[in-house]
């Protein structure tokens, strides 16, 4: 298979084929854990690291894994990576680990990871696979963090509250109050709020894409008209 262009990989992961907004994979952690920015960021980083490492490992061993057993091997690779990340978080980011709880082991079941391992890393070289994992992870993580920030601002009226769980005592004062407590909207913190916010994000992306393609069409029509005019 021919090598893909890095810029295409980046555009795919971040925008055109964004795991959360277009492929709509990994919704369970995406919706459940995005109630604060810090939670979202913590899970985003854990998912990103899992994607990069799993893609790298799968790409490295792809020539030795026989097709009949590739799925069990990939699942095993992903499960090991996630377990290691879980142990490290438990040891070094204990309070964040307690907040994220069940959603760290559940990264194993996040379809985006096995999808990239099977669909990309098993057919491409190490460098491309790691880069693809990085871009897909960033695309997923950005949506997660934006969703978390939206829900935190609307639902609790704060931003980055509890940042010390992730960044240590220096971040104690990072949390800021954006809205007064009376002006917050509880729905944003509840599961329906997560669906509504994600729906809004998907709609915004679609809107931007449609406007861009309409512009492109208009530009093409204009170009054709002017060339037709020149010919006439």
């Amino acid at each position: 298979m021919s090598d893909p262009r890095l810029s295409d990989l980046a555009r795919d992961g971040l925008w055109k084929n964004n795991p959360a907004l277009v492929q709509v994979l990994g919704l369970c952690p995406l919706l459940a854990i995005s109630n604060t920015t810090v939670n979202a960021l913590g899970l985003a980083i854990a998912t990103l690291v899992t994607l990069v490492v799993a893609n790298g490992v799968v790409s490295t061993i792809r020539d030795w894994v026989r097709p009949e057993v590739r799925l069990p091997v990939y699942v095993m690779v992903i499960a090991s990576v996630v377990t290691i990340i879980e142990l490290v978080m438990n040891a070094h980011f204990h309070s964040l680990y307690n907040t994220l709880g069940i959603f760290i082991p559940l990264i194993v079941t996040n379809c985006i990871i096995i999808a990239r391992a099977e669909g990309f890393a098993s057919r491409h070289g190490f460098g491309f696979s790691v880069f693809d994992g990085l871009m897909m992870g960033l695309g997923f993580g950005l949506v997660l963090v934006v969703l978390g920030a939206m829900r935190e601002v609307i639902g609790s009226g704060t931003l980055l509250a509890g940042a010390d769980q992730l960044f240590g005592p220096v971040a104690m004062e990072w949390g800021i109050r954006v809205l007064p407590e009376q002006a917050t909207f509880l729905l944003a913190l509840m599961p329906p709020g997560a669906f509504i916010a994600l729906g809004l994000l998907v709609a915004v992306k679609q809107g931007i894409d449609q406007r861009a393609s309409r512009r492109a069409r208009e530009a093409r029509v204009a170009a054709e008209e002017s060339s037709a005019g020149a010919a006439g």
Partner: protein
Amino acid sequence: MKIEVRQVIITSVLLAVFFGLGVGFVAYTHQKTAEQIELNRQAVLLGQIMEVLAGEDYDNNPAEAPFLLPEPRSLGLGEPVLDTAGEPSPAALGRAVDAGQAGFRARRDGEVVAVAIPVVTPRGYSGDIRLLVGVDADGEVLGVRVLQQNETPGLGDKIKADRSDWILAFAGRRLGDPPEEDWKVEKDGGVFDQFTGATISPRAVVGAVRDALAYARRHHAILFGESAGRTTEEAS
């Protein structure tokens, strides 16, 4: 046919090798992090115990002084994991701590001055609420903290100390102050506030604290009597 068997063997060996590698890496990380994780767990536990025993003067580390709670069911802690008869071995006691069926003793000069006991109530708005209650030898509440809850964010979760001061109002109360029939939220004719928009969560917590105090009174001899038992032994 022969080739097929060879294929199967090669594939299985490969599979085994990959699984061995995976297990190896996980085991290595586990070994490297186990100590730190245990330290974190202890620190969290000690922090919670210290909060509910605030104001009491003690000179031991209560996190290292767990004891088996008799009748765990009456605290909502589920079926007993250990037989309460006799002194449990340290390993068995560790199992009880993990299962949340252990209390913790605070001592001064070897005498038990206060205990921290967990209590679980199923009457929350969504799922169980697990509390830790600090009680001194006179049956007075030293402090109450929520260990685990799933109450509505922004409403019911104000029972947590980092969301509102509500839970601090228990400190200094006892059965009899207010009288037992007034251990209710105001809406039910009791003396404890509820907060706007949420009655169920405070009601559940008030009931659970009352249960814990009744439990402490019922089992006073076991909870606080350990050192007394020891002194009579020494005397005889």
